[in-house]
C-alpha cells in the first residue's frame, strides 16, 4: 500500500514557538504545516497522509481543549499532542481522557515531543489502514445481492445451512450456492475470515 509522507500540523499562536517547532520537526525529516490559529488550520486542505497535531492549549478564539472536543464534529480524527505554557493537572487529565497522545509543558525535552509525534503518526497510520480495509470490505459487501447479504449475515452469526434455508424459506442447495458466491465476492479465505469481516463491517458505522 503506497502512502504519502506523514505531516505534522503545528497550531500555536506564538510565531517564535511556531518557527522553532517547524525547524525541530523538519530536522527529523518530517513534513510540517504550521498555523497560528485553529481557523487557519481548518481552512487548510489536508493532504491524504497520516499525521498528528501539535496543539497549544492557550489559543485566541477556540482554545486547544475546546477544539479537541469539536474535532469529532468536524470529522477530523488526527491524534493530538498538547503543549502548554502553564499546565495544571486537571487540564492535562481532561486532555488525556479525551484521547490526547501527550500533554507537554513548555519548555519540554525535544525527544519527548518527537516521541509523542512518532507515536501519534503511528496511531494515525494504523487507524487509516484499518479504515482503508473497512472501505474495501464495504465495497465488496456492496457488490452482494440482497439475498446474498441476508445469507452472509446468517452464516456470520453461526447458523448451519439447514437452519438458514428454513429461515429464508429457500432450499438448502440454493443457500449453498449463495454462500459460495458470498465467499468469492467478499474474498474470504475461510468461514472464520468471513465472520471477522462481518464483525469489522458492523463495528464501523456507515459514515466514511
Amino acid at each position: 500500500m503506497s502512502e504519502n509522507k506523514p505531516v505534522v500540523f503545528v497550531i500555536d499562536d506564538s510565531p517564535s514557538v511556531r518557527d522553532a517547532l517547524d525547524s525541530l520537526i523538519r530536522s527529523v525529516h518530517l513534513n510540517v504545516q504550521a498555523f497560528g490559529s485553529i481557523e487557519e488550520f481548518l481552512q487548510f486542505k489536508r493532504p491524504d497522509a497520516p499525521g498528528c497535531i501539535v496543539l497549544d492549549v492557550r489559543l485566541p478564539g477556540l482554545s486547544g481543549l475546546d477544539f479537541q472536543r469539536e474535532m469529532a464534529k468536524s470529522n477530523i480524527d488526527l491524534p493530538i499532542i498538547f503543549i502548554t505554557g502553564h499546565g495544571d493537572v486537571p487540564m492535562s487529565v481532561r486532555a488525556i481522557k479525551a484521547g490526547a497522545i501527550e500533554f507537554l509543558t513548555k519548555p519540554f525535552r525535544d525527544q519527548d515531543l518527537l516521541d509523542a509525534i512518532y507515536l501519534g503518526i503511528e496511531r494515525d497510520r494504523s487507524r487509516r489502514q484499518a479504515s482503508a480495509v473497512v472501505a474495501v470490505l464495504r465495497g465488496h459487501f456492496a457488490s452482494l445481492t440482497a439475498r446474498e447479504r441476508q445469507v452472509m449475515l446468517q452464516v456470520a452469526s453461526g447458523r448451519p445451512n439447514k437452519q438458514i434455508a428454513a429461515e429464508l424459506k429457500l432450499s438448502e442447495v440454493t443457500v449453498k450456492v449463495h454462500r459460495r458466491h458470498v465467499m468469492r465476492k467478499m474474498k474470504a479465505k475461510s468461514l472464520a475470515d468471513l465472520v471477522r469481516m462481518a464483525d469489522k463491517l458492523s463495528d464501523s458505522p456507515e459514515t466514511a
Partner: protein
Amino acid sequence: MQPQNLRAMTRASLLPVVAITLAAGIFVADTIADLEIAVPAFYTVVVLLAVRFCKKRGVILVGIGCCALTLLSDLLTAASGSTGIGFINTTISLLAIATTTYLAVKIESEKAAAYEARSQLAHVGRVTTLGELTASIAHEVNQPLAAAVINGNACMRWLAAEPPNLDEARQAAVRLVKDANRASEIIAQVRALTKSSPPKKDWLQINDIILATVTLIESEILQNQVSLRTELADDVPPVQGDRVQLQQVILNLILNALEAMHRTSAGPRELIISSAKNDAKGVRIAVQDSGIGLAPDNLDRLFSAFYTTKPDGMGMGLAISRSIVEAHGGRIWATPNAPRGAVFQFILPMGMEP
C-alpha cells in the same frame, strides 16, 4: 530599652466607665428632679456611647437597662410633681431611648456589613491582581524561553545530521538569540514597571509612621478583641526612607500578627509594637504577638516569596517586606515569643547624614 513613652490603648477601656458614670448621673438627677422634667431623655447619650464599645446585643441590653432605670426613678420620685405630665414625659423618654437604640443598632450593623464588604474587596483585589500579574508575566517570559529551548535543540539536531545542515542550524541559532533577547526585554519591562515610582528618601520619624499605621487599622484591632500596646522610645533617631513603603511593612506585620492571634483561642490576645534606638546606629522596630507562633524549621523560609502558612495566603507579604527593608539598608527577622506567639523585628540604619 527604656520605654519612656508608654501609650496604652485607653480609649476602648475608658468609654464604658464614662457611659456608666453618665447613666448613674442621669439616674440620680432623674430621681431627684420632678416628674415634669424629662431627664431620662439624656439616656440616649448613654446608648450612643454604648455603640462605640459594645456589639449589637450589648447596645440592646444598654437600651433596656436605660428604660429600666427610667421606670425605677419614676417609682422613687412618684411622690412629687404631676403624675399626668410625668407619665407623658416617661413615655416620651422611653420611646426616645428605644428609637435611639434601634437606630444605633441598625446603623452599626450596616456599618459593619459595609466594612466587611470593603475589607473583603480589598483582599480579593490584592490577591487577584497579584495572581493575574504573576501568571501573565510568567506566561510572557515562558513563551520566548520555550521557543529558545526548541530552537537550541533544533540547532543541535541540524548540526548532528549527516551531512550537517549548517544553514538550518544557523537560522535556528539566530532565532534562539532573538528569543533569549525577547525574554530579557520582557523582564526589563517588568522591572521598569515596578520601578516607575522610585523609593523616596525622606527624613522620617519612625514613631509617627507606627502611630499612623496603627490608626489605619485600629478598628480591625478592636474588632479582633486584641489589646494593643505601643512602646515607643523617645530617643529614636530619624531614618531616611520611603514613608509609604515602611508603612506597608509595619501594616503587613500587624496584619500577620492579628491573623496569627485570630487562629488560636489560647490566652489573651496581646499585640505589642515597639521602637527603640539600635546600638546608636539606627532604629529597631518590633511587632510582638501572642498568636499561633512559628514552627522552628520554617524560620528560614518565612521571608521567601510564595512561602505561606496561611490557608489562602499568597506568600508575598513577608517577601515584599524584606525587599523593602533591605532596600532601606536594613534587616528583618523573626523569633519565637515567650510564652506564645512570634516577634518580627526589623532594623533601619540611620541616614547617611544627620
